[in-house]
C-alpha cells in the first residue's frame, strides 16, 4: 500500500491500532463521492489557437455533441475570449462544462499583445475566486468555479517547428494553467513528418523552459498509462463530427478521395489518447492542480503584491486580519460619511419643503384675510342698505300711520270737517 499522508501523520503522535470488527467507515469515500455527485461537478477548458485550427470541432468531437456557435471570421481586431457553459449528464454525474475559445488569436498583423487577453482572462477567474474566498460571509461551497482547469494549445500542423507566437504564449501561460499541447488537423502531416515534428516541438518547449502539464505518475493504478502518454505529447489530433460507414459500423471520420481518416483509430491519430487523458483518467487531477498549484501561486503573488507578509510565527500579527480591519474601518468611515451626507441632504430638503409649505400657508392666510375682509365689506354694505331700506320702510310706515290717523280723525270729525268745509264753502258763496 502506498504510504498515505495519514500514515505519515501517524508518526506525529498518532498510533495505529487494530480494529476488532467491522466499523463501517470504509464507506467514507462513497459518502464523499455521493455528496459530490449530488452537488455536481464543473470543468473548464480553454482552447488557445489560431482561427481555423478546428478548436470548436475538436470540442464537439470530444464531448460527442454539437455545441452552439458559428465559425469565427478572420478579421478580429484583437483577441477576445468567448466562453460557453453547457450542462452535460452521464448516468448520475452532472457536469457543468465551460469551453472558452480564443477568438481572433493569431489573426492580427501585430501579435505582440495577443497573449495578454488570455492571461487577463485566466487571472480574472482566479481573482473572482480569491474575492469570494476573502469575503466575510462567503459561500464557497456553492460557488461556481470558473477557473480554467485545462488549456488545450492548438499547434498549427506546419511540420517545421513552433511559431514564436506559440512559444511566447505558452511561456506566459505555463505558470497559470495546465497546458496540454496538441497538434491540430494532424491529418495534414504524414506519419514520419509527424514524428519529427513532435520531437522538434518537445525539444523547443524544453529548451525554452515551457512547463507543460505532466500526467501524474504517483498513483500506481494510473502511473503506467500516464507515463506512456506523457511520451506521446503533443497529441496529434483530428476532429470530426461527421460519421462515415467503415465495415458495418458508423465511425467519426474525415473522408478524402484517397482514404478516410478515422478519428477514434489510434493508428490514424491521438484523439483517443487525448480523450482518455483529459477526461477519463486525469480530470480530477487537472482540477486539483489548478486549485492547489496555480491558484495558490496566483493568490500568494496577489497578496504579496498588496503588501501582505507571513511574518515569523512568533509575532504573527495576522497581517491579513489587520488589513481587513483597516479596510473595513475605511469602508465604515466612507459609509458613515455618505450617511451623514445623505442625512444633511435630507435635512436640507425637509427645511426647503417646510419653507415652501410655510409660504403656501402664508399665502393662504392672506387670501383668507382678503376674502374675509371682502365678505365683511359686502356684509356692511348690505347692512347699510338694509338699514336704509328699513329706515325708508319706517318712514313709510310712519307716514302711513300718520295718514291713517288723519283719515280716522277726519272721519270722526267727519262730517265736521266736511261740514266745516261745507260751511266754508257756503260762507264762501
Amino acid at each position, binding site marked *: *500500500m502506498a504510504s498515505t*499522508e*495519514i*500514515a505519515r501523520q501517524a508518526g506525529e503522535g*498518532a*498510533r*495505529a*491500532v*487494530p*480494529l476488532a*470488527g*467491522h*466499523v*463501517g*467507515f*470504509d*464507506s*467514507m*469515500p462513497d*459518502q*464523499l*463521492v455521493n*455528496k*459530490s*455527485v449530488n452537488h455536481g*461537478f464543473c470543468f473548464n477548458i480553454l482552447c488557445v489557437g489560431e482561427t481555423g485550427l478546428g478548436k470548436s470541432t475538436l470540442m464537439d468531437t470530444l*464531448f*460527442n455533441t*454539437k*455545441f*452552439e456557435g458559428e465559425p469565427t471570421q478572420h478579421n478580429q481586431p484583437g483577441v477576445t475570449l468567448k466562453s*460557453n457553459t*453547457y450542462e*452535460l*449528464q*452521464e*448516468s*448520475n*454525474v452532472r457536469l457543468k462544462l465551460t469551453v472558452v475559445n480564443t477568438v481572433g488569436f493569431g489573426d492580427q498583423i501585430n501579435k505582440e499583445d495577443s497573449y495578454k487577453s488570455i492571461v487577463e482572462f485566466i487571472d480574472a477567474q482566479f481573482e473572482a475566486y480569491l474575492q469570494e474566498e*476573502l*469575503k*466575510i*460571509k462567503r459561500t464557497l*461551497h456553492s460557488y461556481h468555479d470558473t477557473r480554467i482547469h485545462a488549456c488545450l494549445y492548438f499547434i498549427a500542423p506546419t511540420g517545421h517547428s513552433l511559431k514564436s507566437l506559440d512559444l511566447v504564449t505558452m511561456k506566459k501561460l505555463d505558470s497559470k494553467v495546465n497546458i496540454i499541447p496538441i497538434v491540430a488537423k494532424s491529418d495534414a502531416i504524414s506519419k514520419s513528418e509527424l514524428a519529427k515534428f513532435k520531437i522538434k516541438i518537445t525539444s523547443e518547449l524544453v529548451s525554452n523552459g515551457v512547463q507543460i502539464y505532466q500526467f501524474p505518475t504517483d*498513483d500506481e493504478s494510473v502511473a503506467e498509462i500516464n507515463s506512456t502518454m506523457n511520451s506521446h505529447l503533443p497529441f496529434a489530433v483530428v476532429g470530426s463530427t461527421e460519421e462515415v460507414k467503415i465495415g458495418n459500423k458508423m465511425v467519426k471520420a474525415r473522408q478524402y478521395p484517397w482514404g478516410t481518416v478515422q478519428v477514434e483509430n489510434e493508428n490514424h491519430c491521438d484523439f483517443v489518447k487525448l480523450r482518455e487523458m483529459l*477526461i477519463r*483518467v486525469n*480530470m*480530477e*487531477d487537472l482540477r486539483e492542480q489548478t486549485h492547489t498549484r496555480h491558484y495558490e501561486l496566483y*493568490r500568494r503573488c496577489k*497578496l504579496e503584491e498588496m503588501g*501582505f507578509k*507571513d511574518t515569523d510565527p512568533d509575532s504573527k500579527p495576522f497581517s491579513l*486580519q489587520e488589513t*481587513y*480591519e483597516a*479596510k*473595513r474601518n475605511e*469602508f465604515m468611515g466612507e459609509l458613515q460619511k455618505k450617511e451623514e451626507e445623505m442625512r444633511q441632504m435630507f435635512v436640507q430638503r425637509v427645511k426647503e419643503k417646510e419653507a415652501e409649505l410655510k409660504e403656501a400657508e402664508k399665502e393662504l392666510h392672506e387670501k383668507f384675510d382678503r376674502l374675509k375682509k371682502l365678505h365683511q365689506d359686502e356684509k356692511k354694505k348690505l347692512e347699510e342698505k338694509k338699514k336704509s331700506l328699513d329706515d325708508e320702510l319706517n318712514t313709510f310706515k310712519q307716514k302711513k300711520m300718520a295718514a291713517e290717523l288723519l283719515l280716522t280723525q277726519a272721519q270722526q270729525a267727519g262730517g265736521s270737517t266736511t261740514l266745516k268745509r261745507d260751511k266754508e264753502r257756503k260762507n264762501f258763496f
Partner: protein
Amino acid sequence: IGNPVVGCGGSTLLGYIGIDTIIEQMRKKTMKTGFEFNIMVVGHSGLGKSTLVNTLFKSQVSRKSAGWARDEKIPKTVEIKSVSHVIEEGGVKMKLTVVDTPGFGDQINNDNCWEPISKYINEQFEKFLKEEVNITRKKRIPDTRVHCCIYFISPTGHTLRQLDMEFMKRLSHSVNIIPVIAKADTMTIEERQEFKQRVRKELEMSGIEFYPQKEFDDDMEDKSDNDKIRETMPFAVVGSDKEYQVNNKRVLGRKTAWGIVEVENPNHCEFAQLRDFLIRSHLQDLKEVTHNIHYETYRAKRLNDNGGLHPISTNGTHDSNL
C-alpha cells in the same frame, strides 16, 4: 454505461464520453489522502463515554485505554484531553481523534463548566483560520476542528437536567451535538420511549437544535431521511468492550444477573442505529456541516468582531474587504 441524455445549452450527447469516470478518479484521490475525524465526548463521569467510543470504533481509541488509570482523580475543573489513533478499514485510512472532557458536570458548582469546552472548540477553528489566512498555505491544512460532540444524558427517566440544557443551548451553534442516553440498560423500553419524547419536547421548546439540524437538510430526500433519525433521537445506548457467547455467536454485551444485554441487538438498545448513523451514513456530512457552517460562522464573526463594529449587512456583497 453511457445513457444519451439531452443536456441544457443546446447540446445533445450522442455516445459515451466518460464523464462519469470522475467518480472513480475522485474516490481514488480520497483513498490516497485518507481522512481525519475528530469526535468529542461530553458528560459527567461514570456514564460510559470512553466505553461507548471504543465500542463504536471497535478499538481502544479513547483516552482511558491510552494508559490512563481508572481511579485517576476527577479533576477540579473541566480538562480537555485529546488522543489520536490511525485506524484502517478496507483500504481507507482514518486519523481518529477522541477529545475527552473529564470534570464536566462533576463538581458541586458546575457554573460555566462548558466554557473550557467552548474555548477548545473555538481554538481549533482559530488554528484552522490562521492556516487558511496564510500567504503561503499548506497543501492540506490539518483539521483538528471538532466534527461531532456526543453529549451523554443521564438515564434519570425524568427530564433533562439544567446543565444539559445550558450546555446544548450554548454549544449547538458552534458544534454538531448528538445527544445520547447513556447506560440505557437501566430503563425499560417504555421508559425509554417516554423519556426520549420528553427530552425532544424540551429541546424543541427551548429552540435547541441537535444534529442533524433541520435547517441544513439539502433536499426532500435528505429531509425525509433525517426526519426519521430525528424522531428516534436521542439514541438510547449501551456500550461494552466485552464479548459473550449468545446463541452460538460472539457478541458484545453486558452481563447481568438477569441476562446479557447485547450491545448490537436493536431490540436491546439503539447502539447499532447510532453507529450506522454516525459512521456509515453521516460521517462525511458531519465534517461538511462543521466546515461549511460552524467554521464559516466562526470565521465571519471573528473577522467582523475585531473592530467591535457590527456586521454591515446580512448578504455578502458589501463585506468584501479587499
